[in-house]
């Protein structure tokens, strides 16, 4: 909510997240626009990983398509020198990285990305309407993640439970992704 800053009398800008309040449900799947979160795009060479992991309080994963999670923070492996780090607990990821002297690039993308939760026994099927990856538990286990496509746009897909995924996409594509997911959900039996 808008509130007056202490000294200046400037009214603080209200946040209007994309997809705010949007949700949809079908027989076997529920779609939810997830709460805003802190995010950084982290780039770093191997030699900096120990220091960055320490500063962030979790071990940055090195294996393709895996993630690590601790204390409301999740680091998703996106490439050999690239991670998407998400903080749901209100931590300041940029400040934590700023303390690290070792070579790296941390860029804030909290507002660039929008997250959609896809949950239910039909979640996998719903996503497979537009995502060509093998989403079976054997190939894409809980904690698995991947930068991939959904229909015509790029997404980051992260499996949070056997029947739950987090879909991250860019803000202006979120309406497309949500609409597509809603359509796909209609055809997603368990």
């Amino acid at each position, binding site marked *: 909510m808008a509130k007056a800053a202490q000294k200046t009398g*400037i009214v*603080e800008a209200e946040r209007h997240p994309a997809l705010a309040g949007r949700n949809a449900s079908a027989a076997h799947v529920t779609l939810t626009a997830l709460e805003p979160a802190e995010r950084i795009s982290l780039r770093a060479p191997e030699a900096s990983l120990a220091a960055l992991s320490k500063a962030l309080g979790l071990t940055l994963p090195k294996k393709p398509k895996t993630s690590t999670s601790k204390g409301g923070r999740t680091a998703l492996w996106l490439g050999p020198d690239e991670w998407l780090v998400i903080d749901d607990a209100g931590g300041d990821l940029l400040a934590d990285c700023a303390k690290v002297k070792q070579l790296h690039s941390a860029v*804030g993308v909290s507002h*660039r990305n929008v997250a959609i939760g896809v949950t239910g026994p039909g979640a996998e099927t719903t996503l497979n309407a*537009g995502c060509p990856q093998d989403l079976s538990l054997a190939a894409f286990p809980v904690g698995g993640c991947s930068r991939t496509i959904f229909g015509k746009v790029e997404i980051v897909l992260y499996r949070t439970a056997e029947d739950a995924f987090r879909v991250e996409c860019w803000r*202006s594509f979120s309406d497309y992704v949500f609409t597509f997911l809603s359509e796909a959900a209609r*055809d997603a039996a368990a």
Partner: protein
Amino acid sequence: MSGAFRISNAGRLTPARTARFTFDGKAYTGVEGDTLASALLANGVHLVGRSFKYHRPRGFLSAGAEEPNALVEIARDSARKTPNVRATVQELYDGLSAKSQNRWPSLSFDVGAVNDVASPFFSAGFYYKTFMWPKSAWKNLYEPNIRSAAGLGVAPDQPDPDHYSSRFAHCDVLVLGGGAAGLAAALAAAETGVRVIIADEQAEFGGALRFESGARIEGQGGWAWAQGIVAQLKAMGNVRVLSRTTAFGYYAQNFVGLVERVSEHLADPGHDVPRERLWQVRAKRVVLATGAIERHMVFADNDRPGVMLASAARTYLNHYGVAVGRNVGVYTANDSAYGAAIDLKKAGVNVAAIVDLRDNPSGTLIDQARAAGIEIHDGRAVTRVGGKLRVSSMTVQPKNGGGERTIAIDALLMSAGWTPSVHLFSQSRGKVAFNEDKRFVPGTYAQDCVSVGACNGTDGLAASMDEAYAAGTKAAKEAGGKATKVSKPKVDADEIWSRGMLGSAPGAGPDTTVKAFVDFQNDVTAKDIRQAVREGMRSIEHVKRFTTNGMATDQGKTSNMHGLAIAADMLSKPIPEVGLTTFRAPYTPVTFGAIISHARGPLFDPTRRTPMHGWAEKHGAVFEDVGQWKRAWYFPRAGEDMHAAVNRECVTVRKTAGLFDASTLGKIEVVGPDAAKFMELLYTNPWEKLEAGRCRYGIMLREDGFIYDDGVVGRLAADRFHVTTTTGGAARVMNHMEDYLQTEFPHLNVWLTSISEQWAVIAVQGPKSRDIIAPLVEGIDMSDEAMPHMSVREGKICGVPTRLFRMSFTGDRGFEVNVPADYGQAVWEALWAEGQKHGAAAYGTEAMHVLRAEKGYIIVGQDTDGTVTPNDAGLDWAVGKKKADFVGIRGLTRLDLVAKGRKQLVGLRTKDPRVVLEEGAQVVDNPNQPIPMKMIGHVTSSYWSENCGRSIALALIAGGRDRAGETLYVPMPDKVIEVEVTGMVFFDEKGERLNG
């Protein structure tokens, strides 16, 4: 009663479950489980269509996907009309409404049939030879008329109200075809625990077991066994069973496209079920069990309604309980037709005679037929048939000539043998081999697949199932399955169908005027193939295109081999030397709906909206499409047209201020100790010495020296740049930079991150811009001394973080306020409220274009076209003269890039200030020269400038800067416009307003 030809105690349908339907307006009754074909045949209806070219009456040839004749239109309502549906695969539902096609005024009396009488004029290649002159008439006269006379169904004229879905899937073993072989392979694979998908185009699995009454497996009838296996497979967690699903395309790396008809067979599908579902499956191993298709006999008038494939008649009897006639004849060169004759005879249908082209055929089936008392005429041919709308007799003659005999019949079953269905194998890029049985069978494999059963040329149920079971086990093992104890099904009895014949039988010619059809759907006769060869076609590919054999929607499923054999015979060459035409996807026609699936309406392409879109909408903005983005074009007030609104917006910005949504600009954060070095290499400008907190206009070239993109870059810190790109260039500039970083400059310690959507951008431009922003800002000194033009500061606005740029794309004092995207709308609203105090306006992309043109600022992609250098655009000042290297530096020294007379960007003033030039208009230096005139350039940007009180334009003109002051001419259709060449700046030439 579901038809006079329904035989009690035959078939597998439940007679009590009736379904009503109409064909050409007449009401009939069928049974649940019928196809439209079986239901019509049960009612004695054979005449269902008119042929493509000659409008000959046609009936059902087959009982499956290969059907060339029985194409009908199925209409659920005025929008749901599907043309060219094969009646043999359309399942009956209560209320189905079908219509015949390509006839007028009616099916039994069709005026177009005059083509049949005139057919000597319509021989192969007729269209190519006849309608050559005049050339223009082809497009306007001949083609449209030929198209409407020849034809298939009529495309629906309303938007498709149905919806379609898509599904990607992965599996270890994909089995295509659900006959005995496919089921055996799937069972073998499934038992090892691997993921199996099995698909079949029919509503029920079983394939040829639908009609093959002699098959017994595991102590039960073949069909019953198949249903038991399907139930077993469905119960397994690792198996997906897809019925009504056609594999239509086999692509690279075992990627197979399938279409599942989800609700085509339902009377009331409801709204939630898609009509069709597109499956795109990636499989480790593919087992092809696609079966074989029976060939017809090629003889005179073999297309009469009532003449059909023996396996079709047998299917109608054994599965649907329908007799295709009461007194049938059989014409064959193969054993399998005997099975049909025997079954019909047993069911009480009179079999007038079996005419077998072979001398002294022998075998179990032949013995059985004789024992059943069926008359067999061996070594004889059917030379013609009687009847017009329905076959009424067949004329039999010894194949080497002799006395004729005419036998009355009401249906004629024919079989020339079976063609292995190698379509999908061929699509997988496998090479077929011609075997000793004169069949093209899979030869060399190109992908991880294996063919089993009839499609592999394997005869007999036991042999097919053995082969399939072994292949299924092997495929599963290769895909990582565990060896298990398996329960291989045991075949107790089967039928062996020995080989048949290819090409035309006696009575089909040669060189007679009879129509012995090879390709029913395209009306290609044996005579046409021979003519093609006589006219010089040597390759089967040429014969195909000259005659159109095999080119219709059935893609030659019944005709290819006959056509090939006739051509080979004419050429006196062995069949493999003439060659088989290539099989291409789709195997059977696929609807556009299935291919498009979800990508229609709002999902056709993403529509991207900025964080401030809602505000603009509320304030009456008219939007324009810029790539996928919706951008506010202008904000008309009551009574304003576009012209008036843009004029007001332009004047207001220069008088007080304007707010502009620049969020769509591409933005890239370049971070790392080598960031400046990287910028030096990617842009023409120098960056090393740019201080933190300052900005610079940068130009990016391609390797060839031409302008690729431009934008203002702010240096936030020694190791951090905030780069902006054009809206349209955002994605490709990022790729261009990343490409160079990874391939040319991998030694640099720098990383690129797209932040286009992290930041909403509000441009506040005009003399009052600082006054509007300042009250909302904390932590930034906005005085001219502390924050001069082309600088960037980080601080807070409205209590949220901002990257505040002082920069101008209008030539007036200006700022661009970057805030995290979710705050864009609120900060815009706060700035708007401040702006209102000063009389500021919101302006759109049109005013933005005019204002920048007044200052001669270029837009990459509008004033440049990929052939413009910085010098051409008057931007030499932005190229670092002392720089040793940057992308494009060598390109810039190419001879033609430094030659005199290149097109240069200049300003144009029309002599009449009220005349606004057309963008794209060509410019000449002498309007009196003869046409075609020598063009010396063209207009790139042109507007009415209310601030200048006149029109303004930019143009690329050969040697333009040396022509300053010259008069040039812009010839238009109705007049010639005189223009004067000027500099590019039309407003505030000294640039004083940047600090005004």
